[in-house]
């Protein structure tokens, strides 16, 4: 059996060290080792976006990232989006805009949205649809997700 390695990285702003085998994905470690099950597993081959997290600020499918690659990395998951017991504006917009239904794809969409709005605080509808194309939803209907992203961007613009 391959040797386990210690990996130290930042997860949601806190330094964490965990043991992992070289072939373990970041998704597996998040869910099975660190009990961060908000990151969902949909396909395990990078086609649904349910496992989207931010790795050094960039959205990635955590099922395609090996945990051992994350030494020194800064990882953000859905569990870290809300702060001080309050939903973040993007989460509030998804809730108020009914941009979630069964909810299994929601964490992935929110993480992708967070990355989008960091890169581009004022995205056009076309840019939103292009950026979120890696996230698959089977039941919400997408339309309200677009509106929730727009609402988040508009709120941020109004506050600045």
């Amino acid at each position, binding site marked *: 059996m391959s040797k386990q390695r210690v990996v130290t990285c930042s997860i949601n702003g806190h330094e964490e060290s965990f043991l992992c085998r070289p072939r373990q994905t970041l998704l597996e470690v998040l869910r099975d080792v660190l009990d961060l099950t908000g990151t969902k*597993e949909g396909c395990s081959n990078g*086609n649904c976006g349910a496992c989207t997290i931010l790795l050094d600020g960039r959205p990635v499918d955590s099922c395609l990232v090996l945990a051992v690659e994350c030494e020194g990395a800064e990882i953000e998951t859905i569990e870290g*989006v809300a702060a001080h017991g309050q939903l973040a504006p993007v989460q509030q917009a998804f809730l108020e805009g009914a941009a979630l239904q069964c909810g*299994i794809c929601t964490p992935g969409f929110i993480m992708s949205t967070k990355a989008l709005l960091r890169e581009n605080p004022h995205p056009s509808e*076309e840019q939103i649809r*292009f950026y979120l194309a890696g996230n698959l939803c089977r*039941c*919400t209907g997408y339309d309200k997700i677009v509106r929730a992203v727009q609402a988040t961007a508009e709120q941020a613009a109004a506050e600045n």
Partner: protein
Amino acid sequence: MVELKVDWKPRDENTVFHHPIERIDGVEKASGFAKYSTDYAGLHTRLLTSPHAHAKITSIDLSPLKDVAGVKAAYVFPQRAPDGDTLFEINWEGTPIAAVAAETPAQAAQGAKAIKIEYEVLDHFVDEDDLEAAAARGLSKPGRRESVDGDPDAAIKNADVVHKGHYGIHSITHCCLEPHGSTCAWNGDDKLDVQLSTQNVSGTGGQFAGAPEIGIDAANVTVNCEYIGGGFGSKFAADEWGIACAALAKQAGRPVQLHLGRRAELGVAGSRPSGFADVTIAAKSDGTIVAWDSHHWGTNGIKGGTVSQVPYVIQPEHRRVRTTGIVTNTGPARAWRAPNHPQACALTCTVIDDLAAALGMDPLDVFLKNVGISTGSQLSNPAEVYQAEMETAAELMDWRGKWKGRGQWDDSGWKRGLGMALHTWGGRAGGGSCTIKVHPDGTVETFAGTQDIGTGTRTCIAQVVAETFGLPLSAVQVNIGSNKYPPSGPSGGSTTIGGVSGPHRRAAIDALGRIFDKVAAKYDVDAAQLSADGENVVAGGKTVCTWRQAAGLLGPMGLEVMGEGPKNDGLTSAGVGGVQMVDLSVDPETGRVRINKYVAVQDIGTIVNHQLAKSQVLGAMIQCIAYGLSEERIMDNASGRFINANLRDYKLPRIGDIGELVVEFYEPDEQYNKGVVGLGEPPVISGGAAIANAVANAIGVRVPVIPLTPKRILDALASA
């Protein structure tokens, strides 16, 4: 006890019910803390499945497992192991044969790979469209229905216009984003706790208990499902992999999670039967449809069944329908959101659209005319409702302003087109019960063994109860998702919202009457004059006491009341319809389709929550775009395998593929007064046909088989 009338409040008196309230479990879902079956930890499992579509298992050897590190338990599915000369016959690729539980996913996968299976491979047949080939191999069989009404031959002979054509709609799968499965944990030898991804919390415990491998009392099985990541009609049972999970957990002495991998999820966890048809339709020159004659066929897998309910909604006076089922070695069918209806709609509304083209008429006029003269029992609404909905949809789409006949659009490059279709559904409330507890401090808890499959069941229950007691939503704690709560029916067939809103309203009204009796006795008022409003109990506009004071009169035990349903008291109803219209563009160079605008008009009786209802329709619309344009189970005739069973090649629309979606509820007062009707199924029915009709309008020729992939569109253009 004071008798309070059981009904919904007048429409404009509601403050919570019939309002677009945010879903009460949205915080958990948006923050990642909602726990689904897949989120409960246990040993990891991998299935060993058949690579062959048709074969017999001649041997199974588990002995190599002893050399695989981390393996804690192994399971062979019943009857798979040879028993003397009796060999298990595999009838579709992906049939589970064995399961291995191990410490890590990799170890479980290694274990599954190590098991040695030998097969006697048999001939297979997976081509569901090829009726001739199926018949030649003895794999077709007459369907259950061959019916004749009136005299179709004479009506066709005497008609002004006759159209003949071939049509079809391929099989799709349920493709739940959260795969089927469970996490099972034993509490001692005789108590089993199951975290099951299910649409049927109350109905699955007995299935676990009754399995020979489990063999415990049903009372000792707890099934929980707080959240579920999609079911669409495929998650009603414990399933054999659920039993396997429980057996592995018992063997290992530890919790085990067994959820299907994506390939198995698409391959064996449910599919929607295909349907193909040769149709003759005939009409008078004014557009009145006089006759229908069809032979349709398709497959639901090894059982060889096919779709029914053709012709759909519009039933000409003279009609003949013949069906043939095809036996195929494909994954088994399960109820797929609105079973039979999307296929029946596609095989009917596309034909009517072609007839309209042959008549040189706007199909809207043909639908408007014929919905009023249909015979038979399929019309769930009066024709006037359908006609009003068609006019509403036409206005939202600007159909009259935009409409042009096939090939008459003034465009170059991308070709534009309009299409429409109608649908119907029942949506009667399912059976269900609940308990409502009013605590002495006035807080309220509800308990029901139902589940929230994304519909917003929790929120709707809270709205019903809060409205009845005159309380804010936050004063009501809703408990669902356990088979230890009062039983409630499975969430299928659009039965849930009616199935929970009726019992909860009845129980709350019952409880309210009992509380009013206490208030009347204490404050010397007439109980019949009391109402609960804004956290107070009032009589004649004056506050008698606060809700909390009223609840305090119940004593330290509070009050617990049961509610049941369905009942014929007007709280719930059945029978809805709707129309969908699509404006799209087609690139004749590539066969790509772009949705410009998609309008859905729907009636559903009393709407509990407009925001949640709209979400249901929007979700259905993207499923229509999916099966209308790209989603398809593709079987390889040579290997018998489902060759696109992954989320890369099983094409579902992405967020950039859907265009503008418009949802409108048809809800005059008579709809509000009708009672609650389920909504899950109806809006997923007619979109596929509407898309196919819009493509025909755009490119001038019929693409006969749905989904309208670029290849099928280019093939149709080439053959025109």
